[in-house]
């Protein structure tokens, strides 16, 4: 993942993280907290109570104009026309060869008004791409710098947030959003997240981020809410088998190879990459993003080679310990013949083969209420 030149960018909460004693690291050109109390503790807090994440570094674009919908439809793989105002979907922005410009969430704000939330490291690239490929009477505006995003994730998220908002959170379903006041501040509350838990992502003006952060932290203290950094964000999303741009998805792999065929809606009309993807669907994919767990003793990590009887068959894209599951897991592209559940292969760890097995993924699914 390439980072822009120059000094690291800071979110409006940078000084708050430092005051909390966070360990700061560069991420995609941003100075971000990787952990506060420790990755394992933060991970467990999200799975058993709640965690608070500053993800203000992410990008937001507003797509508007009378032809916003058809223009957007041509750029993404999913079908935005299925969205009612207030609804969200996960999608891919694709190149003509079916690989990823980025993965993103698409919010339908109104009949002809959308918000796109994109990865921090890709903001400039995505904005140039979208602007360069919009057709007809549609406009794109990059509102990333003015927009803060705070994620409250975990089973206790609703009970922490409800007293702070008149919005009836019980009526806000997963992958829906609404506008309302939180702690007295106007915000967009989205029932989405990158952890595999119930939770909310709260969009609000950057100048109000600190107030909201402190309000939530104070309110949640009594039920085990912890501030959480990018370290725990990564271990959580891996357990939930959510792709990370730069690791699992990029401009070298297609949406189908990434096992994301479910966000491709073939019947919705033309979109960039449709032809290549349709051909790939008909012919079959040669390699597939596959979830595995370690059987032997060791931890698989990005770029480790995958071998079968000594022959290279793929490479790990993401891997590490799964703190909640108590095992080591990973994702990697392997030759399709070896992607079936139960298949065993070896990961080369410091030149030694260590046994791994393909397992169903997501590795973790939150308990149904």
């Amino acid at each position, binding site marked *: 993942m390439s980072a822009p030149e120059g000094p690291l960018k800071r979110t409006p909460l940078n000084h708050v993280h430092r005051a909390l004693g966070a*360990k700061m690291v560069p991420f995609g050109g941003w100075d971000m907290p*990787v*952990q506060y109390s*420790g*990755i*394992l*503790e933060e991970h467990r807090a999200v799975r058993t109570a709640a965690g608070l994440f500053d993800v203000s570094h992410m990008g937001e674009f507003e797509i508007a104009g009378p032809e916003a919908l058809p223009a957007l439809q041509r750029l993404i793989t999913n079908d935005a026309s299925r969205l009612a105002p207030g609804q969200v979907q996960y999608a891919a922005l694709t190149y003509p060869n079916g690989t990823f410009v980025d993965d993103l969430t698409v919010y339908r704000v109104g009949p002809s008004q959308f918000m796109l939330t994109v990865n921090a490291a890709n903001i400039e690239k995505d904005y140039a791409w979208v602007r360069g490929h919009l057709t007809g009477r549609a406009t794109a505006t990059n509102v990333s710098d003015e927009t803060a995003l705070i994620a409250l994730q975990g089973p206790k998220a609703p009970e922490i947030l409800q007293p702070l908002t008149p919005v009836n959170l019980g009526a806000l379903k997963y992958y829906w959003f609404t506008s309302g006041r939180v702690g007295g501040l106007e915000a967009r509350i989205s029932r989405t997240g990158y952890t595999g838990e119930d939770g909310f992502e709260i969009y609000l003006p950057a100048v109000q981020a600190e107030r909201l952060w402190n309000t939530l932290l104070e309110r949640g203290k009594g039920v085990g809410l912890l501030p959480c950094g990018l*370290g725990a964000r*990564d*271990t959580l999303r891996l357990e939930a088998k959510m792709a990370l741009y730069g690791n699992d998805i990029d401009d070298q792999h297609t949406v189908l190879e990434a096992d994301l065929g479910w966000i491709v809606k073939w019947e919705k009309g033309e979109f960039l990459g449709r032809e290549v993807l349709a051909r790939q669907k008909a012919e079959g994919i040669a390699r597939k993003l596959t979830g595995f767990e370690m059987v032997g003793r*060791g*931890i698989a*990590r990005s770029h480790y080679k995958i071998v079968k009887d000594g022959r290279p068959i793929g490479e790990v894209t993401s891997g*590490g*310990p799964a*703190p909640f599951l108590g095992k*080591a897991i990973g994702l990697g592209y392997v030759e399709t013949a070896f992607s079936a559940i139960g298949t065993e292969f070896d990961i080369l760890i*410091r030149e030694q083969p260590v046994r791994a097995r393909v397992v169903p993924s997501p590795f973790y699914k939150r308990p149904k209420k």
Partner: protein
Amino acid sequence: MTNPEGLRYTREHEWIKVEGEKGRIGITHYAQDQLGDVVFVELPKKGRQLRQMEAFGAVESVKAVSDLYCPVSGEVVEVNSALEQKPELINQDPYGQGWMIVVKVRNAKELTALMSAQQYTSFLAQGAK
């Protein structure tokens, strides 16, 4: 956190405690703090012969992998098997229960090449990696 007196230290943040003819070896408080939560340790088998500063294993945190270097030449005579189930001992007690291996010191003169606690403290203060 002061670095314990009486130990010798490497530039790679291992410590060695001389116990008669043997040396008990682990990583420093600074090293475990830099790593974060330790989740995995790979250690050599008893009987392995090591040279000074030869890599003898690896310690892994959630996000990082770090090689371990032996402060002195010698034969591995003990390995801390508790670390397999409880790698977090390295974070909790790096100079005590987080010890990793014990070697039979082949040449005590090699210890002079290592740093004292004071020297290691200065080394860290100067922004050592």
